[in-house]
């Protein structure tokens, strides 16, 4: 059994413990302990019934934890050793776990950490490595999140919106570290979409798949960012694109449009173009207009200005840009690009250099620095 298959069992094992009467926070610790033991012993000694093994070991760990906790409190054993018969709940437990981990009282980083551990079945160490923080800090973040959930009451969990927001954050974290967070986000969103009756969950899954399909072409071998126009489209994963498009089409047919479906539609139009010059920018602008109706944010307006520049020419793009809040990240980079296309190379070179200085990440800074250098070289050669 591979690591991913093992982790897929985690939410169900946790649900079994909670159904037997264990409190969420302790049960979650117990499942984590069983998981760590499984990762250690299964390679040499695989169990015949992996899920049964996990339930048994996690339940014993729970009893030990509950006993030592209660011994510490009043030196009396209060917990029944025999598990009460596991009732089969009609409620969907895994979905409930998702909602609990995306509790509205949690900060985004806490909700992300708790979701990756309790639903994703990652170890604290793996989550800490993925987010580049010490393991002790991540352990505290997770137990604090569980205390928050317990204090707020498990009866008022988040909903499918808050869960989608958390999974979007996980996906967007990128590909750094040992654990592939993008793949993990796709796995969890797939699970969510199969259980939540919401076309936006399908839209989010489609969006992730369509971006994931371009992964290999997004960076050059030396790690530099490759813009969409220059990506080697033969390296796009056509099977994943086809899957994303099919999921999106089924979601759109249900006629309950939302921001993830709009974003996925834009990604699908990019994926559909064999060459950059074949891109259907007019339709992309129309989807940005739809997106603005459901989620009017400066980032959406900025990206719309880029699309308008492609569809109707640089002057139209600059006019669209004039209505966008200048404080939004990458505003200067977009301005530089549009001015270059408009033929104003000197202004473009200056703006590219400004964009490099205000870039929010290293790949973007390096990319904008190269752009500035390229345009300055053009200017020297022509002057």
């Amino acid at each position, binding site marked *: 059994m591979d690591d991913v298959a093992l982790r897929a069992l985690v939410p169900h094992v946790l649900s079994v413990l909670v159904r037997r009467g264990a409190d969420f926070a302790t049960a979650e610790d117990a499942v984590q302990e069983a998981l760590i033991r499984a990762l250690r012993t299964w390679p040499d000694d695989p169990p015949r019934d992996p899920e049964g093994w996990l339930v048994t070991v996690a339940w014993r760990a729970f009893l030990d934890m509950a006993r030592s906790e209660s011994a510490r409190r009043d030196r009396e054993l209060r917990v029944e050793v025999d598990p009460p018969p596991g009732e089969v709940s009609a409620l969907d437990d895994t979905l409930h776990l998702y909602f609990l981990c995306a509790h509205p009282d949690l900060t985004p*980083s806490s909700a992300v950490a708790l979701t990756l551990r309790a639903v994703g079945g990652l170890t604290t160490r793996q989550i800490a490595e993925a987010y580049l923080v010490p393991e002790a800090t991540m352990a505290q973040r997770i137990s604090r999140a569980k205390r928050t959930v317990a204090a707020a009451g498990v009866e008022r969990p988040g909903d499918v919106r808050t869960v989608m927001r958390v999974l979007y954050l996980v996906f967007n974290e990128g590909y750094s570290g040992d654990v592939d967070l993008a793949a993990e986000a796709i796995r969890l969103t797939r699970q969510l979409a199969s259980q939540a009756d919401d076309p936006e969950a399908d839209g989010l899954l489609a969006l992730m798949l369509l971006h994931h399909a371009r992964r290999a072409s997004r960076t050059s071998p030396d790690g530099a960012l490759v813009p969409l126009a220059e990506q080697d489209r033969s390296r796009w994963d056509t099977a994943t694109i086809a899957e994303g498009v099919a999921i999106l089409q089924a979601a759109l047919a249900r006629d309950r449009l939302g921001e993830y479906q709009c974003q996925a539609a834009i990604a699908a139009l990019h994926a559909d173009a064999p060459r950059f010059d074949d891109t259907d920018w007019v339709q992309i602008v129309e989807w940005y207009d739809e997106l603005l109706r459901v989620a009017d944010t400066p980032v959406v307006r900025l990206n719309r200005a880029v699309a308008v520049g492609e569809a109707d020419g640089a002057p139209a793009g600059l006019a669209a840009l004039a209505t966008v809040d200048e404080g939004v990240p990458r505003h200067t980079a977009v301005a530089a690009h549009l001015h270059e296309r408009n033929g104003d190379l000197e202004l473009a070179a200056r703006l590219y250099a400004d964009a490099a200085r205000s870039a929010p990440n290293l790949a973007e800074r390096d990319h904008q620095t190269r752009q500035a250098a390229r345009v300055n070289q053009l200017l020297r050669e022509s002057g």
Partner: protein
Amino acid sequence: MAKYLLLKHYQGAPEPVNCIPMSEWTPQEVSDHIRFMQDFGARLEETGELVDAQGLAPEGRWVTAGADGQPITDGPFAETKDLIAGWMIVDVDSEERAYQLAAELSRAPGAGGEPIHEWLEVRAFMEAPPTIEG
């Protein structure tokens, strides 16, 4: 979810309210200050926000490569304008939270047990580019 560096300066920061140098405090005031810093770090670990906390030796040297590629050192220079004392790295949900933590750190007790109101420099880390670019 972004990392920030909270930089503490020996020299080069604007002057704090309580600016009596540490060497002129009472030993108890020095101990109280150090205890505050330790407690602050421990509390940040508890909130799941601490990434790192380090102090630097005040004296540094400038190093360059000579013609043969071997290091050539210069300094230390007493007149250096900007001198970093140490840092904390935090992983927080917002820029506001990073400022809030810097403000708490700024109120570390100094002479007379009064808050120093030291100026801290807060700098955002460059992180990985987002997967969904637009």
